[in-house]
């Protein structure tokens, strides 16, 4: 009969935040990537504001996706290498909560900064004013989905060398519904339609991910780190 215990969620959340803070240069690189690549866009497409505006929403989403993919590999890599993951897997706590703590820390250090930086990008890419709020809301939910689903991919490839590219291949199809509804939220707003329905679908995807991904990650970690 389990005694009263903490679930491990806040412990692992705080520790991962502390570890990210100690390596804050590294932790900031997805954000820097996000901003830098957006300066490439006008160079390759056009600096014309009206034409940039047509593609702004989609491009910001793609860059958020790529930036998250870059960072999600590191979710379990360091713990796997120094043995912390092994210790987590044999601890009496149920796995999903500590894992959710880790994934939340990942979102707080990747997805949330991206979301907060997105208005800056919206400005640089001439996003129409009506698109800013939908962009913030959809990116907040969407990057959370990216972290959760990306964690499944990271768990499946944690013991592989050069798992990063494989991780992207595995996880990309799973990201597509998120990106479809995320960009639709912004497009609807720009076209003057009610943008809450696609946002609601995004919310549903987020809810499903929070419920299911930690379980999938736990199962995958038990399988892959045993070998």
């Amino acid at each position: 009969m389990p005694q009263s215990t903490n679930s491990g969620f806040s412990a692992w959340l705080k520790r991962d935040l502390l570890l990210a803070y100690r390596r804050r240069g590294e932790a900031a690189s997805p954000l820097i990537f996000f901003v830098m690549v957006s300066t490439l866009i006008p160079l390759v497409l056009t600096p014309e504001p009206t034409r940039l505006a047509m593609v702004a929403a989609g491009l910001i989403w793609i860059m958020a996706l790529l930036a998250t993919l870059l960072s999600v590999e590191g979710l379990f890599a360091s713990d796997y290498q120094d043995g912390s993951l092994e210790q987590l897997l044999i601890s009496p706590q149920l796995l999903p909560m500590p894992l959710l703590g880790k994934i939340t820390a990942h979102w707080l250090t990747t997805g949330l900064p991206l979301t907060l930086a997105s208005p800056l990008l919206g400005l640089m890419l001439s996003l129409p004013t009506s698109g800013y709020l939908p962009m913030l809301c959809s990116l907040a939910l969407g990057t959370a989905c990216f972290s959760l689903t990306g964690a499944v991919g990271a768990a499946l490839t944690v013991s592989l060398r050069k798992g990063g590219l494989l991780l992207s291949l595995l996880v990309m199809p799973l990201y597509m519904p998120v990106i479809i509804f995320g960009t639709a939220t912004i497009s609807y707003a720009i076209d003057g339609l009610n943008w809450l329905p696609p946002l609601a679908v995004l919310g549903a995807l987020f809810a499903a991910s929070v419920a299911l991904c930690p379980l999938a990650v736990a199962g995958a970690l038990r399988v892959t780190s045993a070998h």
Partner: protein
Amino acid sequence: MSQLPLLNVDNLAFERDDDCLLNNVNLSLNAGEIVQVEGANGSGKTTLLRLLTTALQPSAGTIFYKGRALAECRYQYLSDMLYIGHQPAVKLTLTAEENLRWMVNTEAGVKHGSNADPHGIAAALAAVGLSGYTDVPCYALSAGQHRRVALARLMITTATLWYLDEPFTAIDKQGVSFLECRLQEHLDQGGAVVLTSHQDLTLKNLRNYSLSSQAGQVT
């Protein structure tokens, strides 16, 4: 009153990729006893330890803790067990003190929801010879010092069953005798240890258990 053995391994077998790594492993451990698992490299010593920690699932056989199968009492068993493997589970960007505090908190937090006693941690680090290094981030420490941080855990843990995989690697002669002392202390207090090592140990109640390199038969 006959006491049930603390740990009882019954006919354990482990297979991976159609290779039988372990077969017919039978082992029994009471409080105060220590088993040293011996065998050539690749004979399955680490695999056996990992099966005991439930990191791996056996292909056949059962492990009993205080008479109950693990499947029934997983929580109690894992709360009462400690494992130190080849990797010391030390985060490089944290200091020795922070690392040890995390390890103890994880163990204690599971049991009492409480925080680790800071004096206990400082004392433990001093005991393993790291008293000057408590605030040094671990990337500045050597591999041997990382090992000592992991072993400091043995000073303050409340776990009864200790599973140690090659605990004497990367520590000097002084460290070896220190660890032996600590193991003896733990056994005298009613704990039990299963370890793998090539070292010759002088401990009371020591039994050897040999795994031959073919399918782990008892020799």
